[in-house]
């Protein structure tokens, strides 16, 4: 039993040391900048899905499709009017399928809503700055999207980062379950 116990433990240890941050599973990262939707697929733990079919849909309407490039990236023009969440699907063809959903708010939230807000704010307080409100809105939007994009990317990565602590907690949970099962069996005797 000791040898038997040692073998899996060695395996686990090797795996944990070899690549603590690696994992498996595909994710899609997508961002909207200046009227273009772009992004890429990635495998948790490394690797990009290259030359893989992707497809973008808004509700029932297909927006665009194509194949990812060497970096697993895709891009297409953002739709004029966003009526439903835009869903980008990557399918490697071997059962790895991942989706990213971009809600309408990611497309600069309805060209209708934002200028309305803008008008509300400046008109009573400061009388008419020279630039037209919709222009400012578009500029701010583009700038913010540009600034936020790397942050979003980082968030996505952190979200998927495998930590040794997660791994260890899983293993100890399993050991705990085994202990509970043994205890329950011991009581029944």
């Amino acid at each position, binding site marked *: 039993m000791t040898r038997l116990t040692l073998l899996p433990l060695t*395996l*686990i240890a090797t795996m944990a040391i070899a690549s603590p941050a690696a994992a498996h*599973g595909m994710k899609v990262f997508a961002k909207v900048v200046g009227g273009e939707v772009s992004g890429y697929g990635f495998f948790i733990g490394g690797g990009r899905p290259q030359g893989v079919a992707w497809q973008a849909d808004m509700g029932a309407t297909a927006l665009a499709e194509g194949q990812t490039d060497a970096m697993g990236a895709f891009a297409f023009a953002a739709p004029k009017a966003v009526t439903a969440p835009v869903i980008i699907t990557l399918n*490697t063809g*071997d059962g790895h399928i991942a989706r990213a959903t971009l809600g309408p708010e990611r497309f600069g939230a309805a060209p209708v809503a934002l200028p309305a807000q803008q008008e509300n704010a400046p008109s009573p307080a400061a009388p008419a700055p020279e630039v037209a409100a919709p222009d400012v809105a578009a500029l701010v939007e583009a700038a913010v999207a540009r600034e936020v994009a790397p942050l979003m990317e980082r968030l996505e990565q952190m979200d998927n980062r495998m930590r040794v602590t997660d791994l260890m907690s899983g293993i100890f949970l399993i050991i705990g379950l085994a202990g509970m099962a*043994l205890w329950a069996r011991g009581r029944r005797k």
Partner: protein
Amino acid sequence: MAHIPDGLLTLPVLIGTGALAAGGVALGLRALDDRAIPRVALLAAVFFAASLVAVPVGPSSVHLMLSGLMGVMLGWGIFPAVLVALALQAALFGLGGLTTLGTNTLNIALPGALVGMVLGPMIRSATSPARAGALAALGAVLAVAGTAAGVALALFLSAPEFTPAVKVLGLTYLPLALVEAGVSGAIVTFLARVEPHALHPNLHSVEDQPA
């Protein structure tokens, strides 16, 4: 791959595979005794950890499953082991999903259990450790093929447009099957040499009477 995420499969597929997986888990739990519990837990931990080491292959990415080995060593005990490990992977790492837990458990555990049932007795009665290892390698290949077929079938039944392409499957699962064969073969050769009892799922009951 073997981890089908939430939201792809239709309800009948989820329920059907879930029920089958529950049956397998029940069979596995019934076979658990004091000796089996730590073994199931250990291999569940190995399976849990192994799936976190992903290797990019072609357009995709693969990881070890060792389901053939688990089937030989655990018999039907592979079902609870895989279920627990998959549940933890879904909860901690977002691999697969909670609704597809039954489907994924079935796809991974059933081929392993069948390999254990068919090849297990031959491996245990093999005349030399090398022969046992070779049989285990064959079992690993079959288990991977079974899992690939299960994933393909589940996707085909739910969303035909997502059915994996045979070419891509071959491209990604073939290297995986070969690596699995190597690893499983090495482990079984080692166990057959130093601890042949470890290859028996159950020492008390009649040899290889599953369920």
